[in-house]
């Protein structure tokens, strides 16, 4: 091989190498979970969980059925997301579920732990309907869009996780939002 093609080949190899190194996943995100994207009204299927958002509501006061008699005020906004969830393999916890808005993550509020749908206690293929409750700063709601990330464990490396986009501009808003206890529904009942 003459000198000119060899130099050209080396330069190409160097450029490819730089691109490969620059775009390669780093030590943390190489084992990140795989997001399975969906929109409200769609059944989004992860490896261990199928999730469908039935609706989303926001308000400054939260009324918990079977809980405190008076509504609970928030200095920000209560975001209530109504969902239907089905575990694929067995018992699941949803306590790691979060809403991501503008680079910030908001976990489910502990105030509605006894009423919100934070566990699927019956096992595989038994669908439940209920609500997830988040307390957000008002500015977060004004961001326009959010992602509901339905994480079932702290260690979800290399697993698939349903992620559902929420349009915060289309939220049903009222002064008071209520949360009812979760219920078991028939499989395939649909929304």
């Amino acid at each position, binding site marked *: 091989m003459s000198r000119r093609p060899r130099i050209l080949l080396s330069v190409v190899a160097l450029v490819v190498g730089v691109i490969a190194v620059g775009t390669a996943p780093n030590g943390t995100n190489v084992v990140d979970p795989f997001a399975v994207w969906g929109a409200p009204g769609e059944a989004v299927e992860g490896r261990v969980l199928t999730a469908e958002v039935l609706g989303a509501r926001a308000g400054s006061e939260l009324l918990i059925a079977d809980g405190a008699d008076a509504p609970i005020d928030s200095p920000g906004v209560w975001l209530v997301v109504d969902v239907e969830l089905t575990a694929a393999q067995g018992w699941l916890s949803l306590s790691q579920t979060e809403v991501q808005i503008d680079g910030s993550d908001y976990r489910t509020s502990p105030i509605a732990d006894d009423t919100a749908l934070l566990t699927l206690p019956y*096992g595989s293929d038994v669908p439940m309907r209920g609500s997830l409750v988040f307390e957000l700063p008002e500015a977060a709601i004004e961001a326009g869009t959010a992602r509901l990330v339905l994480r079932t464990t702290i260690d979800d490396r*290399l697993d698939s996780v349903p992620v559902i986009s929420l349009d915060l501009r289309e939220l049903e808003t009222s002064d008071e939002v209520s949360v009812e206890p979760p219920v*078991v529904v028939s499989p395939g009942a649909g929304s």
Partner: protein
Amino acid sequence: MKRWMRRNGVALITLAVLAPVGVFVLSGVELLDRAGRVTEPVTAAGPDEPAESDGLSARVVDSAEFVGEGDGEGGNGIPIGLALVATLTEISADRDVSCTPDLTTGSGEARRTWPSLSAPERFGYGYGDDTAIACSLDAGETIELETVFLTPVGTYPDSVLELTVTSEGARSVLRLPLR
């Protein structure tokens, strides 16, 4: 070609070895770590035989499926498409043990589990008068454990009862066919 191989052969072989090793280090270690997490020894019983392990003996003596007819008039309180599976298991122990019952089908990625219900009366089920509803035994004791599971219709024929037994900090699993 021969000349090229003489000059680049070592580099080529090094690449051929290092590339798969790199891929394994990035993701294979993670996957192997996950695969190695199930460690409890499992003892499976044949039909009509008791399963025995670490001084505990268990046998399913009866089971039944109650198919859901819905909440409406004439319904039984179990959602349509779902069913209650009830099991009665004779358990005896020669030392203090406790166990957790689960209904299961399949294995590996196809494994499905259903924990026992803590309040089956919510679905119209009433426990018998003389049965135990918690699996906790003193040494020398024998109980009839009544457990109820909420499953999709059609699960019952393929399912087995698994008792995860905890005794003196060690865990083992007894796998019992239904009858």
